[in-house]
Each structure stands twice: as C-alpha cells, then as structure tokens.
C-alpha cells in the first residue's frame, strides 16, 4: 500500500532547490548555447564600463537580450574555415592520439608492478596519488620551469652530461621552440597529471580479481607475460574501458594544462597560439564576447566538441561490447 502513495508535494519541495538552480545554470544554457550557435550576427549587447566605488570596472550590458540578423548554420561554416579552429582541432587530435594510449599503458604497467609487491605498496601508492590533489595551474607552472631554457632542471641535466640545451618552450642559443618540443613538454605534464586517477582505478580493480586465477596459473607454472595478457588484462577490461573513455574525453577537453605551461598563452612567445586546443578556442571567442558573432562562434565550437565527444563515446561503447569481459 505504501508503495502506491503519492508524495507529489513533498517531492516538489525536496527537488525545488535543485531544479531551480538547474533551470538557470543547466537547462537554460543548453538551449541558449544551441540557439546562439545558429544565430547570424549575434550581438550580446552594447557594452559600457562603469567604474565602481573601489575603482574597479563593472561591466553592464545595455541590452538584456542580444540582437541577431538571421538563423542558419553559417557559424559552423565560419568556424570550420577559421585557421585557428583548424589548428585547434589538429592540435587536440594529436594530443589525444599521443597522450591517451601512452598514459593508459604506463598506468597499467605501474599498477601491475605495484600490485606485485608487498613492502612500501601503500607509501608508493600515496606518492603516485599526489598529482591528483595538486593544483593544475601551480604544477603546470612548475613544469614550465623544469623545462625552461635557462635555469631549468632538464636543460641543466643535459648540459651536465655534455649535451646542448634544448629550446623546449622558450628560445635558447638562437634557436626557437618547435611544435615537437612544446608537444613533448605538454605530453609529459599530461601524463604526470593523469597517472594518479588511472593507477587508483586499475589497482583497486586488480585487488578485486579473485586470487584463485593466479593460484591456478602458478600451479601450471604460467609465465608472467601470459598471466598478464590472459588473466589480468581480460579481468581488468571493464576498468580499462572506463579509463580509456574518460581519458579520451579529458584529453579532448585539454585547456588548463596548456594555459599553465605557457603562462597564460597557448604556446611560446614566438607563437602564442601554437598549441591552442578546442576548448582554448572556445574560451578565446568567449572572452571576445563584445565583438559581433564571437559568442556564436564559441557556441558552435563547443557544440562541435560535444559532437566529437559523443562520437568517441559511442564508438568506444561499441568496441567495449566486443572486447570487454564482464
């Protein structure tokens, strides 16, 4: 009888705070961003800056609702023709293709090694977890110092063994940083930053695998490599699939790590947009909001990012259906 009771009013009361906030900050933005992406010549408002009492400038829009001239898919075409967007798409894809497989494989190796030892396991796991609790911006700045041309650890070490310093992210000895050196630094930082979570998930997955499988393998004197490929990987495949999907999504949304490594830019001083990402492009356009049409370009590129993420998730779910052993 109790199961059929109707708590309509109680439910409404309990859900009201959440639904109210979500109406403003979740549902409205979805509709609004999609609409913005299809508006031609959208102007958010005429801006005037008013100095506040403390001397800091407050921004107010003269018009509450923006104006536009028409509707269409023009913004998507403009964005796809934009060279900065093209390079953002290319850069992001390269970062994803390089960093995701590398970091997943490295995390898997570390987890297997960590799972095979008894002493210092907790200590090492704690150390490996540290990047998770550190600030992406703070440690990004540290990586830019580690790789800085002068007074950096890496170049000092290279010189100590008699090699020439490398212009990683800033010029040295007349040489400018290249795409490859910048990508290298970014990849190292991305791996460093992402290991903690992957190791945690893999390790807890491994610890829940039934010990009997390993004992059976031991009785048959199965070599380690076979144990890894025939027991650990198949039984860990749900975690591997999960980590791969989240890593792909995370890598496609790369932004803060790039900004931190290049001190607020997307590349070295010589080429400040060298490693611009899709999200970076979106925020560049968003910061430019007062220029006609820029907000629509930001929306269009965010929707393209959404499309890419959906596509990748669907493909991976299809692949997992065949490969993952539950």
């Amino acid at each position, binding site marked *: 009888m*109790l199961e059929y*009771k109707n*708590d*309509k009013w*109680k*439910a409404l009361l*309990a*859900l009201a*705070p*959440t639904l109210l*906030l*979500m109406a*403003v900050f979740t549902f409205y*933005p*979805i509709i609004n*961003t999609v609409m913005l992406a299809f508006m031609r010549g959208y102007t*958010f408002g005429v801006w005037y800056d008013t100095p506040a009492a403390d001397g800091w400038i*407050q921004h107010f829009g003269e018009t509450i609702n923006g104006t536009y001239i028409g509707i269409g898919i023009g913004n998507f075409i403009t964005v796809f023709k934009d060279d900065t967007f093209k390079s953002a798409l290319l850069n992001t894809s390269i970062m994803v293709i390089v960093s995701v497989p590398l970091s997943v494989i490295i995390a898997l*190796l*570390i987890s297997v090694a*960590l799972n095979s030892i008894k002493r210092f396991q907790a200590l*090492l*796991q*704690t*150390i*490996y977890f*540290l990047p998770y*609790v*550190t*600030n992406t*911006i*703070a*440690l990004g*700045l*540290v990586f830019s*110092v580690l790789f800085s041309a*002068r*007074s950096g*650890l890496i*170049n*000092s070490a290279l010189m100590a063994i008699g090699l020439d310093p490398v212009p990683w992210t800033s010029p040295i000895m007349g040489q400018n940083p290249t795409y490859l050196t910048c990508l290298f630094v970014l990849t190292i930082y991305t791996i*460093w930053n992402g290991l903690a979570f992957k190791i*945690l*998930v893999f390790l807890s997955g491994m610890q829940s695998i039934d010990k009997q499988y390993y004992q059976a393998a*031991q*009785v048959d004197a199965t070599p*380690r490599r076979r144990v890894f490929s025939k027991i650990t990987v198949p039984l860990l495949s749900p975690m591997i699939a999960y980590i791969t999907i989240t890593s792909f*999504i995370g890598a496609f*949304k790369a932004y*803060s790590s790039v*900004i*931190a490594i290049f001190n*607020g830019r997307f590349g070295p*001083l010589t080429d400040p947009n060298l490693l611009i990402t899709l999200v970076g492009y*979106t925020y560049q356009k*968003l*910061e430019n*909001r007062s220029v006609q049409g820029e907000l629509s370009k930001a929306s269009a590129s*965010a929707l393209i990012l959404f499309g890419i*993420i959906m596509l990748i998730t669907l493909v991976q779910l299809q692949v997992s259906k065949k490969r993952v052993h539950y």
Partner: protein
Amino acid sequence: MHETELFMSETELKKYRVKKTLFTILVYAFLIAVALFILIPFYWMVATALRSTNELAETRISFFPKEWLWENFMGAIVYAADRGSNFLRIYLNTILVGLLTTIGTLFTTVFASFAFARLNFKFKNGLFSLLLATMMIPGEIFIISNYTTVIQFGMINTYWALVLPFATSVFYIFFLRQTFMQIPNELYLAAKVDGTGDFKYLFRVMIPMAKSTITTITILSMMGAWNAFIWPNLVAKKPTMYLVSNGLLTIFKATDDTSTIINFQMAAATLVTVPLIIVFIILRKYIMRGVSRSGIKG
C-alpha cells in the same frame, strides 16, 4: 616456501630464486623511478622558490639551491600585494567559496536524492534520466551561457557567481541516491508504523547512515573549489576576488623568457600547493577511498 618451489631440484631452485630476486629488484627500481618522476616537480618547485634571482639567471643550475632564501615566500606575498592582491584574502576567498559551494551542494543534493530514492511521484524515472543525461554534455556548453547569465545578473566579481552555478551536482545526486537506496526498506516501514514523517526519517535515519558518502562529497567538493580555474578565471577578474588558481596565474605569469620573478612564482605555487597536500596527508584514507568509489576524474 613457495608452492612452485616444491617440485624443483636443487640447481633449478637456485636458478629460480636468483631469477625471482632479480625480477623483484627490477620491479622496485621501476617503481622508485616512477616515484622520482612524480616527486621531482615538487622538489623543483620548492628548490626554485628558495633560489636567488642571480642564481636563476645562470644558464646551468645546480640540483640543490646555493642559498636557501626563505624570505622569497614573503617576497611573493609582497609582489602580490604590489599588484593589488592579498594572499590571505585569496586563501579566504577560496575557502569561503569552497565552503559555500559544499554547503549548497549538500543541501540541494541530499533533498533531491532523498526524493529520487524514497518518494513516489509521477515522472520520477523520467526526471532522473533527464538529469543524468545532462552529465554527458561538456561543461563548455554551460559555461558560455552561464557567463552571459552572470553578466546580465550583474554578478561578475561576486561570490554569487562563483558559488551558485556549482551549488548542485547531478553526479552527487546520483552518488547519494545509490547510498540511500541501499538502506533497507524495512527501516522505512518500521518508521512509518511509528508515525515518523518522511523528512524526519531523512534526518534521523538516512543522513546518519550515508555519513561516509556525505564525507566523500564534502572532501571532493572542497578540493574542487581549491583547484577550480576556468570559471573563476572568467568571473573573478577583480584582484580582491581571485581564487588561488586564477590568482596564481594572473599575478605571477611570466610575461617573457627573461622573467626575474621565477622564484616568487614558484614560492606562490608552493603556497597554493602545500595546504592541499597537508589536507591530503591527514585525510589520505578518505580522499583515496572517495575518489575510487565515486570514480571522479581529476
């Protein structure tokens, strides 16, 4: 003795043991190398913070600082003050925003997940699926329109802008609902027989029983505020409103390659990093368990 070793001859056994020891040494060497890879950036951050500007101007630098200039930390604080920012204020802003966000999130998600786990109403499953579906959408889509909303509300450079968009979370509703649903139905029926109201049951039974999930949400939400960058960087432009991440980058970014404030920059990075590491060391168990249970990617 190892089980496999029972079936081996003396020489086989010796070879097996040597191989096994060698392998163990290799595994440890690998793990220690990884630990160094993780730790060296932290060391370099502190080491660079302590060096003098003259030392940092040298092309090749020693692994250990020549002198330990602890006053660089004070220097960083003064450097920020010269640019209209107060380090203490930035800390307090971040803690305040973290606390308000956490309180808001707990308030909204506890009630919402209670409704989804315990109450009966029309469209319950439909509404829940609708909320879950929003989790697939990348944050950028929300941020674009939330930014314009916050401007229209005149909330730029206010705590409202920093707190309100994050005062609820579909993920935590999902997480908490799972915990609530594990509470046996019999308890609820017994409480009903005793004439306990639904909300009283929530506060007396459900919340105490979900304590560990609520702790997890509190920790993750506070950590989230400490590490948030994108949103504060958009809406907290005023030096007195900075949170740690955007304050650090805005105040201390090196504008060119010959920047002379690298030691201050690293001192500031240390000041931002250390509090969270201390919290992590104290709450290690809860944080690691919480992250692995909730599966939130950092």
